[in-house]
């Protein structure tokens, strides 16, 4: 084979190798940076904090929830507490069902069996998924369980438990 033909073949070979290496680098970057960031934990915690700030402040259950002059719970707030807390659970984008579930339970602080009030909103189908443990199940939903104490009716102290569930698996997990 003459030298010119040999050089031609080698340059074609180099070009093919260059394309393969460039393709490989593109694939590597795509695989590495294509993985999503799972921010559902932060989202669930923020949701809990927003609800906690909405229903109690300065150690006392909010006057939006309790009418202290008449010593009664305000049903209007209980029925539409997400609206009052500026939360919007309407499904957006690709989802048909809401991707959130929130449950707030008020217990007597010194008698945990005594449930005083329950408020919930969102898709309750996600709640049982919180109990599932183990590999694979962690992709289903992210749950946040928070609790704190606040003064309520007749100077009683309540234990307020907030459960927030965020699904949004498709957006956050590969």
């Amino acid at each position, binding site marked *: *084979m003459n030298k010119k033909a040999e050089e031609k073949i080698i340059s074609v*070979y180099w070009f093919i*190798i260059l394309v*393969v*290496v460039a393709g*490989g680098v593109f*694939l*590597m*970057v795509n*695989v*590495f*940076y*294509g*993985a*999503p*960031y*799972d*921010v559902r*934990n*932060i989202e669930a915690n923020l949701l*809990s*904090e927003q609800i*906690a*700030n909405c229903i*109690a*402040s*300065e*150690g*006392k259950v909010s006057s939006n929830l309790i009418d202290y002059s008449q010593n009664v719970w305000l049903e209007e707030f209980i029925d539409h507490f997400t609206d009052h807390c500026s939360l919007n659970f309407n499904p957006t984008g690709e989802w048909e069902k809401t991707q959130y579930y929130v449950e707030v339970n008020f217990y007597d*602080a*010194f008698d945990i069996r005594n449930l005083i009030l329950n408020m919930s909103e969102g898709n309750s189908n996600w709640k049982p998924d919180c109990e599932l443990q183990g590999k694979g199940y962690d992709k289903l939903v992210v749950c946040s369980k*928070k*609790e*704190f*104490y*606040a*003064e309520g009716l007749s100077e009683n*102290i309540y234990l307020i438990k907030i459960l927030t569930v965020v699904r949004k698996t498709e957006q*956050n*997990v*590969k």
Partner: protein
Amino acid sequence: MLNKKAQVGDTLTWIVATIIVFVMLFFFIFGASLLGKTKAITNFKVNLLSKSSSQTHDLFLTKSLFTYLRFENTKSGNDLYKKLTKLEENGNLGEPLVDRLDELKKRSQGK
């Protein structure tokens, strides 16, 4: 004959080089796919390398302590403090109970 031998040697070198390039590419792509798994972000940080969270206070502990301060020096207040101590023992509080209480007391006294 000698020329043919040299050509075979050259070809073999190129084939081996090509195989090495492909193996290395496969190795790096596999490594990228291992490292590029979903990254769970669990708390706020100033930057990716910092260990501490930028969120300094446990909001739920603060709310409970405000309630405690309303009932301080009463039986309910003491019972509530015991419950908070138990929560701390079980590792359910985001920061030391006594430190946060002192901080809130100082703040309420305007210091």
